[in-house]
C-alpha cells in the first residue's frame, strides 16, 4: 500500500494532467490534435477513476471515452475539415 502522501502527489499530477490536456484540446486549432488530446484526457480520467477505487468505471471510460468517442470524432473530422478557421 502506498502512503497517503504519495497517493496525494500522484493524484495531483493526474488531475493537473487532466485539466491541462482538456485546456490544450480546447485551445488547439487542429481538430485532429484536439480529438487525440481528448483521448489522452479520457485515459488520464480512467487512471483517476482507478485511483478513486472505481475499476469498472475506469474500464468503461478507457474503452468508451478513449476508444469510441475518439473514433466518432475522427470520423466526423474526416467528413468535414481538419482545421478550425
Amino acid at each position, binding site marked *: 500500500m502506498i502512503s497517503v502522501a504519495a497517493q496525494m502527489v500522484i493524484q495531483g499530477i493526474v488531475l493537473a494532467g487532466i485539466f491541462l490536456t482538456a485546456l490544450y484540446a*480546447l485551445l488547439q486549432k487542429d481538430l485532429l490534435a*484536439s480529438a487525440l488530446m*481528448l483521448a489522452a484526457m479520457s485515459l488520464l*480520467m480512467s487512471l483517476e477513476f482507478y485511483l478513486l477505487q*472505481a*475499476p469498472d468505471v475506469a474500464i*468503461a*471510460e478507457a474503452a468508451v471515452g478513449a476508444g469510441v468517442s475518439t473514433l466518432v470524432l475522427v470520423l*466526423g473530422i474526416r467528413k468535414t475539415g481538419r482545421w478550425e478557421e
Partner: protein
Amino acid sequence: MMVYLTAFALIMLGIAGMLFRRNLLKIIMALSVADSGAYLLLIAIGYRSGGTAPILTGYEGGPMVDPLPQALVLTAIVIGVCVLIMAVSLVVNVYRHYGTLDVSELRRLRG
C-alpha cells in the same frame, strides 16, 4: 478537495469552451469535457478515504467506497457517447449544407 476542484474546473472549462469557441466540432468536444467533469464529480462524491473498491472477492473488511455513483457513471458514460454520436452525425449534415462548421455562419434561421 483537489478532485472536486478539478471536476468543477472541467465543467466550467467545458461550458466556457462552448461559449467562446466557434467551431461546431470544438463545441461538441467542449460538451464532452463538461460531461467528463460531471462523471468525475459523481465518482468523487462516492469516494471514502481508505475505502476499497466495491468488490467482495478478496475483501478483508474495512470501509468501501460508495458503489451507487459508479453505477450511475457507467450509465452516464454511455449516454454521453450517444449524444456525441448524434451530434457528430448532425455536424456532418451541417457541413453538407453549409460547407463550414463556423457557428457564426450557421444563422439563417432568426427573428
